[in-house]
């Protein structure tokens, strides 16, 4: 019996029994939503959907939402709606026929390039409901007088600060949470977008470009140039590999053992909690080759509706409204991916500025690792996360950049091939 036929049989049996067992999964009156969030973000989202006409049951699943949904699908008990942070998953699910196509409201306007990520064969399968600005460096102005404007300036400043750090134990130039693989992939993506341009970046994401080609090599060369600076990180690269993202923020805002930390707009939550003194963090954009070059990488979360769920389609439609996320905008810490949402409705000044940058940028590229297929997309110890951590380990440990780069591009190409084969 083929798996397909067997699955159909299972589904039929399931349909027969679940009706009898009172259909606990698909209750017509209430909608079930599985989301990637935990903690604060989960609470905020609950506040948002409290305004939806029907009751919504929200389950916070966390990062393993893919295996959660796959298991639910095989059991025939998918939720009505899922919120995912990987558009790659949306495409995969849609191709397997798990999803319903959705229609957003007229007040839904995501940045160009983002909406296309959610369409398969001309059908739209999800809407963007939250954005993250992933091209920011954070620093205290008292420790860094002049923020670098180009990549070369960043490197030279890092060298200078590192020399001082080695000499008199002043703060190291950079903090990096390399224990979390996504931090390193965010570094890589910014560098890649700047050296390769949107075309190649996009082709890599679609699996159409060669990972061993020159653009990837150049991007890795760049990172190696910066990361291999002796004394670049507090207590060295091996310690950085055991430092998680939020701890790296602590190194800057609390211990002041590092001057700059690169990451997304949500740094401000950790910074507010652990900051000592009154000084506020400032930001500068991830620098490109020239003054004018400012790569902009965004991440974000997508809402999708599962096949056969009318309530789910309705909820996704409702979430695409300009006004839906009012409570979260009000609470702060939320950047809307909907360009129709007025900039002024973002409560904190930082988000207001970022919202403007989102509108001003001529190219907005979505986080590359979140677009990659299968296990290549990365999680702890797996895929591109792991590959970038190995690369970081090598260049901070004194391996020649040339060797590290060629080994890494080989690993990336192999992982891309394996992911394609498995699909």
């Amino acid at each position, binding site marked *: 019996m083929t798996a397909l036929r067997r699955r159909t049989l299972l589904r039929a049996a399931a349909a027969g029994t679940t009706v009898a067992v009172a259909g606990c999964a698909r209750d017509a009156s209430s909608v079930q939503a599985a989301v990637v969030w935990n903690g604060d973000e989960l609470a905020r989202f609950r506040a948002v959907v409290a305004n939806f006409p029907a009751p919504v*049951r929200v389950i916070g699943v966390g990062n393993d939402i893919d295996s959660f949904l796959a298991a639910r699908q*095989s059991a*025939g008990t998918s939720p009505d709606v899922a919120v995912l942070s990987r558009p790659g998953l949306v495409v995969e699910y849609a191709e397997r026929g798990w999803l319903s196509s959705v229609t957003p409201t007229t007040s839904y306007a995501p940045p160009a390039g983002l909406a296309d990520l959610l369409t398969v064969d001309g059908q739209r399968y999800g809407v963007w409901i939250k954005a993250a600005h992933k091209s920011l460096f954070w620093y205290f102005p008292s420790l860094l007088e002049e923020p670098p404007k180009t990549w070369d300036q960043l490197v030279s400043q890092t060298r200078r600060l590192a020399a001082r750090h080695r000499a008199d134990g002043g703060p190291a130039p950079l903090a990096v949470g390399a*224990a979390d693989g996504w931090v390193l992939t965010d570094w890589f993506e910014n560098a890649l977008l700047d050296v390769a341009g949107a075309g190649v970046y996009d082709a890599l994401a679609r699996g159409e470009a060669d990972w061993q080609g020159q653009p990837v090599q150049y991007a890795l060369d760049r990172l190696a140039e910066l990361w291999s600076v002796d004394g670049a990180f507090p207590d060295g690269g091996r310690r950085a590999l055991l430092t998680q993202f*939020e701890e790296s923020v602590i190194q800057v805002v609390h211990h002041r053992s590092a001057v700059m930390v690169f990451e997304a707009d949500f740094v401000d939550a950790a910074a507010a909690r652990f900051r000592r003194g009154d000084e506020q963090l400032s930001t500068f954009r991830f620098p490109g080759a020239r003054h004018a070059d400012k790569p902009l990488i965004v991440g974000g979360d997508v809402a999708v509706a599962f096949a056969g769920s009318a309530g789910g389609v309705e909820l996704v439609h409702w979430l695409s409204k300009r006004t839906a996320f009012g409570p979260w905008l009000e609470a702060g810490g939320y950047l809307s991916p909907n360009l129709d949402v007025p900039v002024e409705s973002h409560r904190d000044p930082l988000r207001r500025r970022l919202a403007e940058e989102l509108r001003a940028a001529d190219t907005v590229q979505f986080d590359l690792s979140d677009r990659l297929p299968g296990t290549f997309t990365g999680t702890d110890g797996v895929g591109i996360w792991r590959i970038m951590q190995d690369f970081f380990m090598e260049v901070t440990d004194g391996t020649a950049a040339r060797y590290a780069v060629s080994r890494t591009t080989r690993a990336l190409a192999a992982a891309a091939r394996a992911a394609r084969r498995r699909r």
Partner: protein
Amino acid sequence: MSRVPLLGELAVLDDVGAPRRGRAYPAEGATWALLAPAVLLLGALLAWPVLRTVQASVTSDGRWVGAEHYRAAFAADGTGAVVLRTVLWALLVPAVVTVLGYLLAVASRRSQEGWLVRLILVVPIALPLVVTGVTFRLFYDPDPERGLATLVLARLTGRAAEQAPQLLGPELVTVAVMSAFVWAWAGLAMLVFRAALDTVPADLADAVRAFGGSRRDVLWDAQWRPLLLRTVAVVFALVAVGTSRTFDLILVMTPGSVRDEAAVLALRIWQTSGATTTGEGAALGVIWLVAVTVGMLGAALFIRQAWPLPQPPAVPAPVAPPPRRLVRLFAAGAAVAWLLPLAALVFTSLQHPDRAAVEAWWSRHPTIESYAAVLDNPELWRSFRFTLMLATVVTVAVLIVALLAAYPLAWLTGPPALAIGLALLAMAVVPVQVIAGPIHEVLGMGFSSGTVQGLALVHIALGVPFAVLVLRNAFADLPADRIRAARLSGWHWWSMLRLLVQHNHRALLAVAVLEFVQVWNDLVVGLLFSAPAAPLGLFLQSQTREFVTSSGTLAAGSVLASILPVLMVLLASRQIVAGLVAGGVR
């Protein structure tokens, strides 16, 4: 994660030993009705999923592909290292735990402060492995400002704190996880050895001495040959099977950058397939399944051969002098070493949540703000209520199903008894990661996966084999004349069952406590079979994502989650050991 019974193998392994029940009382017509619930559960949620996994490992979309998945799984980067590491775990760690357990049992046996040492060592047994993981990640924190072990290592090696060896770094992370596991299991080994040593007839040692035997001869002829050989085998096998639980520890203890350096098969399968079945994951799973089963059965048969003649119950008569000073020092040292990680956990939980992320846990005056923050979290309360409800329901259900099934099985003798014993044993050690995908399919047919009922059903199915084994052994040990008397006076089988229950309340209590603690402490079943609410293990694990910044509340939550299982195991420890060992000594 396989359901590795805590103290179970004692009784379990015994039973596949010499067929020592010479009284065949065939069950009445109700046999099949009594067996039906257990057979249905185990068939649908264990046996069938295992078959499906085997099928998935040799097919692709229903097409026969032979060994292709196996080849692909082994061609994947690092699989060889993962398999080697799993084998290392299964050989090295049990050896260390066995030796430590024996030494601690001897050292803490007759001294006055021995009870304190035992108490300290028994607490880690009851902790959820997630909590053990949290404890050791705090203890081994690479920042000497927070990690006591790192600070001590830096002092010992004479290096600057920043250059100190990193216990969680790529080279040492496996050793670090192993040490946490030894910490958690040595107490159990100690308990078992202690129970064994207490049953060694004292006059045997006297006899050896009377014939001019040295200390070594006493150890060899009065302890090793009659008893310890078998106990060592039991403990070794028990811990070896237990090493498949490392999954929880690895997930909590290792930062993402070193997870691969610590990975074992359990983790690799989960990384490859999650809660579904993929060809490669299934292939790895089948390999693991075969290894676990073969190892388990091999151990069972080995122990059977090593099984000595049944001994008359010994009257423990402490004739030996109290242990020497060196031995007592060893016990005291062990107690301190075991206490330090616990101190790290408790004192971190007594820090302000924000301070716990940036300062040493030994530097501040305690506050209860982390507890306040945790108790303020409605998710924790939901999780508590849910776990309590789940563990209670599962325990009751397992007891009922197992009682019914154990009754007819207890009358079997000879090869059928042995065969059923081995089959139950094999089912008790099936690693649940391997069969998660097919279980989801089965749940989807009847109930629904992703519901509370589904989660409870999986727990019940995983708990039943072990419970049946223990209860069957206990039942089979009821003195034959009592049964004969009962039957002659014309009792029905249900009166018989009642008599058995009354006579075996210790075994029942042991099974109930162990099952409850098992479910309460679970992470992996909750992870693979998520329900609308998160069980405690999953709740804690989800907070370890940014470990350092949540360490204060995480420690507080861990302490709160540990209170109930620790109390239960401590209060019932005597009954647990007695209830489980009962079949063995008689």
